[in-house]
């Protein structure tokens, strides 16, 4: 057949169906009339002739059927008809259809959005680098088993010896104060080894990138590479930026080039703005040259696999190199090395930053599960309702296969609808950037939907929808149509309702778990917000002050700080002011191992093993009056005074727990504490002069206050200090006011925007706040779904027991008694589910607690709140069918069958 004629005929078969059918009908009737005319001519009467003609034709419908089978495109037409039929059938039960589609879509959409966000952020390959699949991260394993950063000497040795890696580079990053023609800003600065850009395989957008020859002592013409974004924002993309000077941390650096667009460095969670040679790191550290000591891990390392080598081979080779180093250098004793495929995330990021997404994903998975159970349940309800319809069709001769086909098409339509709506929901979810940033803070994430994820979600939907749609057929195939038809609507289907009850109870249980978890997280957050952190941040403003840019010597810096304090205190609204290196809560503060005097290890024992000793304390460099500003109670001894200056004996104030850990049961005042210096001149023992109450210094979410020791800022040179100001009226002080004071003392010193301490404290609880928000949202969703499921089962129960209930009413049962009969059934289901949910909650809480600090092991109140919510929902779900049952007119109900 010629293609054009074929298309024309398919068109006619499918699109002009009516016309084709009419033609066929008329053609056959003409045949019969002509045949009858023949018979009449042969002498038969008109009636007899017509009967004979019909008989000879042998059933006009059968002939039609056989003729249609010859039509091209008939199978397509059949499919179109089947789809139309399925659509009509679904449209006849709009509640079932819309609930099923919406439920599946929410599950699919949520899961797709979460996976997309994961893939686009935490799991994405580093952007704008060459062949990211060849990159590996290298981390050092301390003798304690903890993964960590690498020292520069170790890095240099490994880089020199490896053959499985074609290149290895060391880097790390920190926020720094930057000054250019446009003014001050804070930028993320990456200090990197010379091969950083060549290992990552990037080319300059302008100028050139860092090369090994740029890694020279900082006194010789230091250089910097800026990010494309920084270039656009600060220089408007001007070519003249290359060659100009940028002041980083008080050092003028020459911009030699611009990194390519989209390049963020090697840390996926922290996009970098500037890249400087790691030799520039020295001024940032107050402990000498950090690249000199083998014991101190300062760097992350990223390597590129040499052609033909695998991660396992690199691991073997680097382990060998490390064991040689460990045998040679005491600092490397007990150290190992780990090579991970891929770059961008350190193991720290993986464990810590991924916590919230992990929790949210668990909630999403649960909602998806509940959604599937819910749809399955709806399907069972519908199946029961359709038993008679299907039985009738079977009795009229429809084949079970064609029946199954019809139902399968309904399932496919449901799945298609759910998948489309789900993808739209997911799209909406990830399109709203702020929504994403509540899960992971990443400004330039790639959040395009992955079609493999979409396909997987659609397949899942298809599977569930098929299962649900075909459930009635499997039943119909087992039972003879006659039995079903004779049975009538009142015949309860016990076996089916057991499966349904289990599903509903499961949903109730799952939503109880989610709600319980959400409430527990919320409670924990409230507790942390209202709990006493050991200090009072209300009415206190803090501002970071950086005199480095003023190029003051050591004495000059002390004089600067003293003057700032004196000038600030002069204001009538200021009740107290103090300096601290770590305004609470401050997670990135210095910690060190401390010892009782006389029990400290030798410097050799300590080198590289600082982390292995039991008492590690936060170190806070403070000015006098810090405890007064923050209202931290002094328990014993005295506070610092202005007499504790650089010339006086070295003193220390310990937190209660630190004192107790070092000198259990003994008054620590007058004892000597050793805080070993890792390099340079040994630090003399510190005399304990005071003991203060514990504070949650690092984060309000900490279960226990950490060890903290306070030393006078005059006796230890900190890198920079923050100013804390408590005002009489509690109002925050203005940036302009602080800037004016600082500018009056050292015009080139920098001041960061002051912030109320209270808002910063609340920020440390952000993960808890978001987790409770997210889990709460999904928990409510789960609850609504469970209520819908429960409603379906109870309502169907009423339908099935209609006759029984009608008889009861006819025999004089009060409507209220009938309603309670129905509600009782629902409550029993709810209670069963709640019992299972309670047990599951205990396990779930354990998971949440492992992921989020401050959450109680078994939060009885949380469970009680969740259970109360659930009971309310159960009652609501039963209320409508119960009312309907109570209003049942026995005459009508009994007449239905």
């Amino acid at each position, binding site marked *: 057949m010629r293609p054009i004629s074929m298309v024309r005929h398919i068109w006619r078969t499918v699109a002009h169906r009516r016309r084709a059918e009419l033609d066929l009908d008329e053609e056959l009737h003409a*045949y019969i009339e002509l045949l009858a005319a023949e018979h009449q001519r042969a002498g038969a009467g008109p009636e007899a002739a017509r009967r004979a003609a019909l008989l000879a034709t042998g059933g006009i419908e059968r002939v039609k059927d*056989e003729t249609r089978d010859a039509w091209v495109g008939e199978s397509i037409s059949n499919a179109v008809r089947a789809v139309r039929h399925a659509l009509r059938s679904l449209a006849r039960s709009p509640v079932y259809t819309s609930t099923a589609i919406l439920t599946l879509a929410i599950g699919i959409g949520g899961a797709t959005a979460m996976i997309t966000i994961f893939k686009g952020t935490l799991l994405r390959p580093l952007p704008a680098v060459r062949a990211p699949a060849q990159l590996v991260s290298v981390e050092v394993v301390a003798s304690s088993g903890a993964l960590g950063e690498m020292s520069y000497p170790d890095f240099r040795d490994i880089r020199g010896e490896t053959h499985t890696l074609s290149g290895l580079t060391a880097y790390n990053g920190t926020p720094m104060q930057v000054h250019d023609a446009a003014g001050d800003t804070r930028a993320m600065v990456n200090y990197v080894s010379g091969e950083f850009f060549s290992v990552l395989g990037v080319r300059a957008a302008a100028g050139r990138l860092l090369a090994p020859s740029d890694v020279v002592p900082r006194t010789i013409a230091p250089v910097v590479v800026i990010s494309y974004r920084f270039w656009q924002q600060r220089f408007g993309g001007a070519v003249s930026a290359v060659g100009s000077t940028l002041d980083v941390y008080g050092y003028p650096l020459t911009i030699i080039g611009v990194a390519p667009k989209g390049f963020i460095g090697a840390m996926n969670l922290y996009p970098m703005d500037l890249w400087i040679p790691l030799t520039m790191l020295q001024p940032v550290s107050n402990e000498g040259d950090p690249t000199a000591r083998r014991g101190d891990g300062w760097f992350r390392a990223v390597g590129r696999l040499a052609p033909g080598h695998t991660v396992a081979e690199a691991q073997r080779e680097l382990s060998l190199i490390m064991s040689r180093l460990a045998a040679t250098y005491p600092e490397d004793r007990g150290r190992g090395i780990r090579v991970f495929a891929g770059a961008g995330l350190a193991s720290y990021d993986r464990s810590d930053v991924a916590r919230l997404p992990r929790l949210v994903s668990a909630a999403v998975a649960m909602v998806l599960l509940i959604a599937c159970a819910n749809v399955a349940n709806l399907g069972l309800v519908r199946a029961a309702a359709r038993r008679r319809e299907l039985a009738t069709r079977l009795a009229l001769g429809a084949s079970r296969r064609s029946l199954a086909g019809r139902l399968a098409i309904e399932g496919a339509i449901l799945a298609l609808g759910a998948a489309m709506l789900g993808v739209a929901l997911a799209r909406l979810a990830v399109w709203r950037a702020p929504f994403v940033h509540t899960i992971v803070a990443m400004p330039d994430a790639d959040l395009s939907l992955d079609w493999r994820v979409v396909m997987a979600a659609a397949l899942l939907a298809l599977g569930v929808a098929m299962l649900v749609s075909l459930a009635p057929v499997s039943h119909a195939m087992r039972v003879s149509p006659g039995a079903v038809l004779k049975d009538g609507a009142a015949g309860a289907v016990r076996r089916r309702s057991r499966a349904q009850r289990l599903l509903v109870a499961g949903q109730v249980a799952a939503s109880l778990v989610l709600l319980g978890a959400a409430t527990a997280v919320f409670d924990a957050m409230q507790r942390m917000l209202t709990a006493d952190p050991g200090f009072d941040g209300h009415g206190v403003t803090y501002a970071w002050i950086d005199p480095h840019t003023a190029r003051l010597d050591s004495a000059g810096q002390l004089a600067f700080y003293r003057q700032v304090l004196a000038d600030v205190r002069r204001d009538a609204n200021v009740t107290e002011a103090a300096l601290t290196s770590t305004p609470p809560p401050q997670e990135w503060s210095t910690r060190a191992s401390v010892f009782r005097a006389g029990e400290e290890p030798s410097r050799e024992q300590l080198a590289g093993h600082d982390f292995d000793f039991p008492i590690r304390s936060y170190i806070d460099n403070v000015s006098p009056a810090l405890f007064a500003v923050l209202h931290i109670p002094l328990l014993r001894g005295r506070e610092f005074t202005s007499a504790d200056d650089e010339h006086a004996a070295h003193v220390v104030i310990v937190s209660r727990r630190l004192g107790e850990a070092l000198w259990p049961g003994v008054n620590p005042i007058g004892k000597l504490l050793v805080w070993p210096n890792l390099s340079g001149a040994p630090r003399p023992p510190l005399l304990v002069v005071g003991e203060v109450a514990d504070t949650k210094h690092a984060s309000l979410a900490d279960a226990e206050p950490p060890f903290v020791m306070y030393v006078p800022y005059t006796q230890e040179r900190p890198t920079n200090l923050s100013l804390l100001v408590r005002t009489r009226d509690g109002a925050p002080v203005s940036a302009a006011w602080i800037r004016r004071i600082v500018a009056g003392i050292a015009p080139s010193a920098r001041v960061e925007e002051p912030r109320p301490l209270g808002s910063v404290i609340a920020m440390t609880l952000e993960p808890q706040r978001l987790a409770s928000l997210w889990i709460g949202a999904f928990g409510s969703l789960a609850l609504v779904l469970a209520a819908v499921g429960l409603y379906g089962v109870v309502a169907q129960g009423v339908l099935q027991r209609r006759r029984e209930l009608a008889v009861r009413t006819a025999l004089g049962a009060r409507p209220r008694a009938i309603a309670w009969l129905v509600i009782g059934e629902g409550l029993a289901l709810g209670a069963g589910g709640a019992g299972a949910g309670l047990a599951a909650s205990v396990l779930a809480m354990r998971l949440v607690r492992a992921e989020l600090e401050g959450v109680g092991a078994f939060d009885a109140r949380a469970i009680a709140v969740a259970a109360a919510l659930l009971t309310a929902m159960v009652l609501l779900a039963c209320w409508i069918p119960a009312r309907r049952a109570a209003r049942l007119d026995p005459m009508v109900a009994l007449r239905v069958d």
Partner: protein
Amino acid sequence: MPQTPLLQGTLDLLILKALSLEPLHGLAVSRRVEQITRGAYSVRPGSLFPALHRLEQHGWLAASWGASEHNRRAKYYRLTPAGRRQLAAETDEWKRVAGAMRAALESA
């Protein structure tokens, strides 16, 4: 009348042959086939109409509505040029097969 089962594919050839003289409606096609096969074959409507529709879709027949001998509107089929070529080709093929068969069966 004696019924001989139709060989596969012969019905199409018979219909093309039946229509080679003039356009006919369905019943007339059936009668013409009986006539040219001397009553050996009578085509039942369950085979006739699927075959007519199939041949029409192949483009070998064209159909149009016309008035029958009793002024009844009926669908008339006629051979298209492609149908005529097909008839010739199938006739040749049939003769070749029939000749070969006869030769095979009559050889001692």
